[in-house]
């Protein structure tokens, strides 16, 4: 467990900013306490100061997880977002996509979102913009990347992919063992 290096922080923030833009500052600078990012076993955890102090008592190899896992650094030092970060990112998401009830399951099984399953989308969403996927009942379901901009989405045929799947809450079940 160690704080992120500058480079790592940059990488992570770049990734996060795709989803929540400048709202990252609300995560970094929280009014309700000091929160920070910690790297542990290549994973980035968003930890409150309190838990951080508690976690210092646990040896590194025994420490499974602390705080909330935001994602992990790959071997190539890219940052990959985990579904566990959804709770923190969803409220600040700038671009959202709502999935029709019929396509919900498909998305939750790890599939991309097709145009036919697209219920609603934030306007001015650009291509390859990170989006948070919601159900029509405004339940956040996961992350994705807009495969097409909003304008293109209108025109495109129903079977084409609109949002690339990145993470979904189905992973809590599907990849339970890897989520920490």
């Amino acid at each position, binding site marked *: 467990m160690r*704080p992120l290096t*500058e480079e790592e*922080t*940059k990488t992570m*923030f*770049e990734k996060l*900013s795709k989803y929540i*833009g*400048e709202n*990252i*500052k609300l995560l*970094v*600078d929280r*009014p*309700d306490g*000091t929160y*920070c*990012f910690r790297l542990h076993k290549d994973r980035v955890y968003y930890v409150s*100061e309190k838990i*951080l*102090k508690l976690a210092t008592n646990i040896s590194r190899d025994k420490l499974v997880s602390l705080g909330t896992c935001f994602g992990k650094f790959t071997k190539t030092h890219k940052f990959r977002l985990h579904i566990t970060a959804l709770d923190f990112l969803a409220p600040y998401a*700038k*671009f*959202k996509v*709502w999935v*029709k*009830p*019929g*396509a919900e399951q498909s998305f939750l099984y790890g599939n991309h979102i097709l*145009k*036919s*399953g*697209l*219920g*609603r*989308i*934030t*306007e*001015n969403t650009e291509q390859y913009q990170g989006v948070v996927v*919601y159900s029509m*009942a*405004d*339940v*956040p379901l996961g992350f994705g990347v807009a495969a097409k901009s*909003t304008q293109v*989405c*209108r*025109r495109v*045929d*129903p*079977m*084409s992919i609109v949002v690339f799947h990145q993470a979904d809450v189905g992973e809590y079940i599907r990849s339970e063992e890897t989520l920490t």
Partner: protein
Amino acid sequence: MEETKVGKRLYIGGLSHSISQKDIRDRFGKFGDVSHVEVITRHDETGTPLKTFGYININISDSSLKKCMTVLNKSKWKGGTLQIEMAKESFLHRLAQERQQVAENAQGQSSKHQSLVDSFKKAGVENFHMKAAVPGTEIPGHKNWVVSKFGRVLPVLHLKAQHKHKIFKYDPSKHSHNIKKLDSEVSVPTPVSELTWELQGGDDEMSKKRRGEFPPQTWTPAKMKRSSVGETVVASGSQTVHCGRKGCHDTPERNRMPSQVNCNGSVQGLQARNQQNGSAVGKKQDLALRKQHRPLHVFNGDTDSEDEIRMLVEAENACSVAMAEADEDNLEVVGEDYVATSNVLWALRVKDEERSAARCSDRVDEDRDYDSADTDEIVTRGKRSDNAAEEKQVKKLNTLNEDCLKGLLLPSENTESPPREIKHRRDVSDSESISSDEESEGDEDYEAMMASCYRLDLSLTDLEKLAKKPSESSEEESAECQESDSHARSAPCPRAGTSLKSAKKGNSPDDILAAILAESSSDEESNKNRMVKKNNKKLHHSLPAFMGTKSLMEETNKAESGLGQKVETDEDFGKRGSVITATLEPPSPVETIPRHSQRKAAPLQTPASKDSMLKQSNGGPVSLTSADPERKKLNFNTSTFEDDESQQADRPNTVPKCSGQKGGVDVSHGSYPSSLETAKGSNSVDGVGEKKAAPKLSVPHCELVRKPTSGSENAQKRQEDNQKRLAALQLRQKEAEEQKKLIQGALLHLNTPTASKGKHIVFESDTDSEAEQTSAGQTSTDTCMPQKTLFEEPPGEKEQGRVFSVKEFQKQASSKLFLSSEEEEDEEDGERFQIKPQFEGKAGQKLMELQSRFGTDERFRMDSRFLESDEKEAAEEGKSAFDSLGLQLEDEKKKNMEILQSLLHVNIKAAETSREAAKGKTFRDISALHYDPTREEHAAFESKSEEPKKESKAERRKKRMVAEKIPEVSKDIFYSVAVDLKETFGPVKDNTKQKEAVAWDQENGLDDQSGEDRPTTLELAEPKDNQESTEFKFSFFEDDLAEDGPMKDNYKVETLQRAKVSWHVDPRFQDSSSEDEDEQNEEEAEDQPVPIDVDEGPTKAKKAFFFFFEDDERLKEGPRMFCRKENLEDQREQWQEKRVSLIEDYRMKHKSARRRAKTSLKT
């Protein structure tokens, strides 16, 4: 002797190399006929023959052969020893012989076969077939041939088994059961031209494809996909059916018409679309379509023709287009500010909505749907849900309620005019609330409450329906209620209905909030409070719907202003329960106390005193209604605690008037339209109540109300209304102010004494309530007495019953409260845990730890000697470590923010400010926002009209002055640019030359100065001249120069000086370049005299023209300067000549000057 000659082939070896065939023929011709001679000579590589031998074919008899052999063998002939042997047959000969043999053999075999067949024929076998023969019978004459199946004649085989000596006899008649008929027919040989494959086949697509004929490509992969989806949908739907039916439907399918296909395709498209939409309706449709579709479905069949498929594709394409359009319509694009509703709430809402919808339908069916607008009732129901024990009591009360209901229902008959109908509606809603209470004993739970909250919107239409029903049903009891009816009628309220509606609709959030709060608070309620609730329920029954919502609204306001849950619930109870008793109380400093006591008092009135209860309940709402609008009107909604108190204090004063309403006179109270309504509603209730409890009611009312009026004064009412309204308004205002003062005073007291009292919890309240219950039989006036006694210990009650009530006090007195208690405790505990002197401080602590390690054993007691001196520091270090952690985190945060900033390129505000802002954030009900002049923060909202006005006046004056003063023209200088800018900036090169020329002049001047030591006057004069020349070089009109004067014209015509442009170097500075300097030096050395006058003359003449023309002097000047015009020698001569003259000149001048000086001195 005649011997047969046999052709033989002999080998003859050992021949000489030079032997010829003829020699051999001659030599062997003696013995026989030599037919063929062959001589072979072997050579080595050089060509020399090694050996020669030959073969001869000879027809020879055996004897002659023998003779020949003996004679010629090993005989010497021509230098070689003959060696004769019999040779093998020649290759060719043998071949010919073999062929001949084969031909002979074939002849023999065929004849054998023929003979066999012939012999068979004799035995009756035709073509190896014997008709009508039992299998197994032997062919006569042929031992090894038997008749087997089908009359065939087959040979019996004798097979030798492998590795065995046994010979196995195979009788085909016994084994060949499964041997089929062997067709001996030879297939007709096909000609070579027809040997290539030809695929026969029909017109179907597959066969065409096999043949290599493909239909034109029409679909894109994506569409293929879609179509497949559609098909799979259908297929999955009707697969089983297809399997079963395929066989039977095969033929009709083949005969299918294209139109059918088309419709089929469209159906599919529809299905696909439906599937994609995933709507329930779509599914249904899907099902129907599938049913329709089954017999037609043949897409998997192999008989699909190309045309059909093509048509299908077309249809699907069309569908997809339509689908795309539809989808486009379906696709919702949302702005970035779209706010997603919170999930939990949503789920709740959906559930509730569903439930409420269901409930609504149910209730509509039943006649007795209750009005959802009556949120008070909802609240109470929510509270009631907690305790099932009270239901019994409720039942008891219900008898009473039913009476009440009757009374309420009555006014609703005989209604024709619209305004009245509205009234009825309201009445009905009241009655409904009661009825719902009656019926909802069993199922009152939180969900119900929530559901009813959401039904607000629906309730209006329902209401109308319901309004009619009770009115019809209640015709029976017409006699009693005429009085109340008249009340209802007399009330003039055109806007009642609308306001009612608006209130109902608008208050829903508040209602929800209230309901939730009520629910949460209800958990905390004690038994006593439950009692209160029961009573309140009763009260609520008679409450008009509108009132309830209103009170709730104000509750929420209060809640927002920080009074907390307690206030709401308390007020809810307190208002209603306490009205009558409150009137009797003097406005004491301890205002909250009566209220709570009243709340207690209310429950005391058990079913035994139903009538009095009813009376109370009547009084309650009335006072409320009057109080609520008043509060609103006066804008008394200060968020402080005093507001609450003031309301409390208001009540006693308002009650008399409200009770006066009974007579119908006081409807005027409601200067506020809504209050009017409510008042009216309560009036009707009152009317009923009056009848029921006429004798008892009259007593308190007479006491309380100074002017009890009869119900028959309705006629005058309207006239009086307006006057009363005005009067009431003024009165209220006065009262309000008074109350405010009183309360402020009261609060001052409250801060100190109640706080101290507040911390004591009194556990006797139960007994108190019991005592109260004993006195329940008393009338309301009587109950006032015990209440007064209770006033002495109100804070105890508060603490005991509701924890949340403490909140109220905490705000003001919390610090003291807790401080004092802690102090006390400290005093007690301090003695116990006094630290021994030797263990004081940090070192002491350590010592103690050390000591405790070895127990109390004296021997191992550790003294202070064992203490290490640096322990203190260590402890401090630990502390500092913690601090450093915080600091590190801060640093980290800062760093993160920096990174973020660099990433986003956005200025992110400092951490501190946002934190503070967030701290300041508290929940605020936007609907309850209002301007409060007493608050300092709200001063910001005041528009300071006076100050700016003054300022503006001053400003205006100033402006006026300025305006008077200034007919002045601005001092800016405007340049009329007569020069083409393009020209000025364009030909830079030419101009530079010119500049150089100028520079040259200048230099010359300077050079002259330096070279000749000119008088200073000259020196000063010359550069000026130069400057002028440079300045006016670009001026278009030369005469402007003369006119140019600041006084003369506002518009100054000036030349555009290139020097002003940064990239154009001032011509005057150009001479600083090194080259020029070099030249200068040269010239200085040469002392070349350049007449200035001459130089300046032409330039001045040409100045007028900005543009260059042919043979421009200026253009010639430049180059001229770079090259010498004359020889150096000449120049020197000239110079020397000149010099003489110049010197003379100088001397002359000098002399004259001296002379002049002398003369001047003399003079």
